[in-house]
């Protein structure tokens, strides 16, 4: 980089950018501090048992444990990624590589429109249309095919872990596909031209574009995962809100965000309130570690790339 003398405008801009970054840092620290302070009584009372506990009784025993919530959050998010990411990447590739140029703009507009739908609308749609449809048509077929697996056994009401995962999958599609489309479009055309020049098919070019943009794709998936982990309203409306680790994906479960939203308002007992805050702390920790892991993955794949490029 050529060095220029720093001018007044640069200094002001630098200071403004620093201030913005500092505010973001303090916000995160502030949240962490509030959560830690609020969950102190519960951490002191239950210790590690809170993470492994499977009971939530705010009426008689005043015993709290978060394992079913952690399970529900991770499993619904995993289902969302499993179903949502392939579709999103397909949409992203279609919009950047395959679709006729004139149809790209309206198509991407449609997909992004999905992101503007409020989650409570997804939830209502989930209760009144998706859940009955799954119950009457999809789940019977699924059970007939895979019923020998415990995950797909038992009775179903349409509301449960799998339905929540499916709603989440739909909700992450706009984010993941919009970001991955941008990432694919950012791949230099020289890469495509070089591949075409040596006689590659469009499919082979698309594969190359995909692997070139890998780090960006991981970023897109992380954003989607973040949305899935933290989604509250739509999940609580279709998951059944049952505090247990279900034996089958058809059965109701609960997630961390859903429980916090449900119970915080009416909680008065200090230990009860503190336990809900600790659930928030755990969710914060999980979200944070997910994005750290994603960053590490991105960095590793960037490094691999540079090495390959240098060969």
């Amino acid at each position, binding site marked *: 980089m050529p060095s220029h003398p720093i001018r007044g405008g640069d200094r002001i801009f630098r200071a403004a950018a620093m201030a913005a970054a500092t505010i973001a840092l303090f916000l995160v620290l502030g949240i962490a501090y509030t959560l830690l302070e609020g969950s102190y009584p519960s951490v002191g009372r239950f210790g590690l048992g809170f993470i492994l506990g499977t*009971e*939530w*009784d*705010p*009426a*008689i*025993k005043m015993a709290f444990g978060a394992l079913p919530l952690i399970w529900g959050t991770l499993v619904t998010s995993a289902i969302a990624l499993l179903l949502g990411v392939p579709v999103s990447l397909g949409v992203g590739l279609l919009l950047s590589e395959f679709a006729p140029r004139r149809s790209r703009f309206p198509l991407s507009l449609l997909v992004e429109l999905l992101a503007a739908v409020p989650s409570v609308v997804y939830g209502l749609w989930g*209760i*009144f249309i998706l*859940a*009955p449809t799954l119950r009457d048509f999809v789940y019977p077929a699924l059970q007939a095919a895979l019923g020998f697996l415990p995950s797909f056994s038992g*009775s179903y*009401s*349409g*509301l449960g872990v799998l339905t929540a995962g499916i709603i989440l999958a739909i909700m992450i599609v706009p984010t993941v596909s919009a970001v991955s489309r941008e990432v694919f479009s950012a791949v230099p055309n020289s890469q495509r031209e070089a591949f075409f020049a040596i006689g590659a098919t469009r499919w082979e070019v698309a594969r190359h574009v995909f692997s070139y943009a890998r780090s960006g794709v991981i970023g897109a998936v992380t954003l989607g995962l973040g949305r899935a982990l933290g989604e509250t309203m739509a999940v*609580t*409306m279709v998951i*059944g*809100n*049952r*505090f247990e680790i279900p034996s089958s994906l058809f059965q*109701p479960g*609960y997630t961390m965000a*859903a429980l916090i*939203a*449900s*119970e*915080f*308002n*009416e*909680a*008065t007992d200090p230990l009860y309130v503190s336990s809900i805050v600790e659930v928030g702390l755990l969710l914060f920790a999980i979200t944070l570690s997910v994005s750290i892991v994603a960053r590490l993955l991105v960095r590793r794949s960037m490094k691999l790339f540079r090495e390959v490029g240098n060969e």
Partner: protein
Amino acid sequence: MVVVAVLAIVGVGLLAASLLQGGPSGTAPGFRGQLQGAGATFPYPFYSKLAAEYSKVVPGVQVNYNSIGSGGGIRQFTDKTVDFGASDAPLTGAQYSGVEGVLHVPMVIGGVVAAYNVPGLSSGLRLTGDVLARIFLGEITSWGDQDIRSLNPSLDLPDKPIVVVHRSDGSGTTFVWTQYLSTVSEAWASRVGASTSVNWPVGLGGSGNNGVAGLIQQNPYSIGYVEYTYAVLNDMTVVYLQNAAGMFVPPTAEAFSAAAEAASLSLPRGDQSWSQVSIVRALANDTRAGAAYPVTSFTYVLIYRDMSVVPGMNLDKARALVKFLWWAIHEGQSYAQPLGYVPLPSSVVTLDEATLRMVTFSGEPLL
């Protein structure tokens, strides 16, 4: 002589007018602005209607009610960040002794009803409290269970599994419902208990009255509980519940009113602890109240006996608040019925009047 008489009449008239001005039904000319309240979601439609109507009666006084939940309402009230709090449950013994000089003002009555969705069964299902508790405990799992059949010999009950639906969010409705199940079932009292949220033995959780109503409508063979208002609005089929007098009572405004009337005989004074007050428990052994629906409750406004403890309060504002509450327990009660609530019986209105007369600002009475 005539002049003196005229003067006397005019004088008496002026005196009467000024008394009326200062009386409970008059306006508070000194205060213009907002009265802030926060708390229970259940009475929200009622309170917002009161606020709208009151601003027509006394222009300049705006009542702002935030329906953040009873728990939040109690927190904001004890933190003194609102002018009045609102809760579906009275303060517990510990909460009451932790707050200096708190007054309970019952504002209106509501009921919780069991609603069900059994295809082919459009009305008339009768249940006892004990059978209901065993359904919610997961001990009775089929609509064709012998204990349900024997209560309903004329109904054609299917052998289908029962889907139990409950609230997933903490709520005063759940508090009243679980308190009822605790009074009618020893097993429920010892295993699950009564609270705004409990550890449900079985069932699906829906968020809010609307969420539960939606789940019941979407799931054939389900049963759940909702506020009476929501059952009326959604045209739901409701259980006829047996009361302590042995009668199977459909939930109606008259049945809730009868319940409140029967329970009002043993209410404490407004400045005493209300932690033991419960229409549900008062009715549990009342074998004379044959018309009473057993799952009925008050919803309360909480205020400080001496308003000067609230930051930002002044004499005029405190007077405006007390006058609003006075209006709410009298004229305001006429807005209850159309919204699905039940007006206070006159015995409770009298009790509330005495409570509101206790309120002072720095020792100065307000009414």
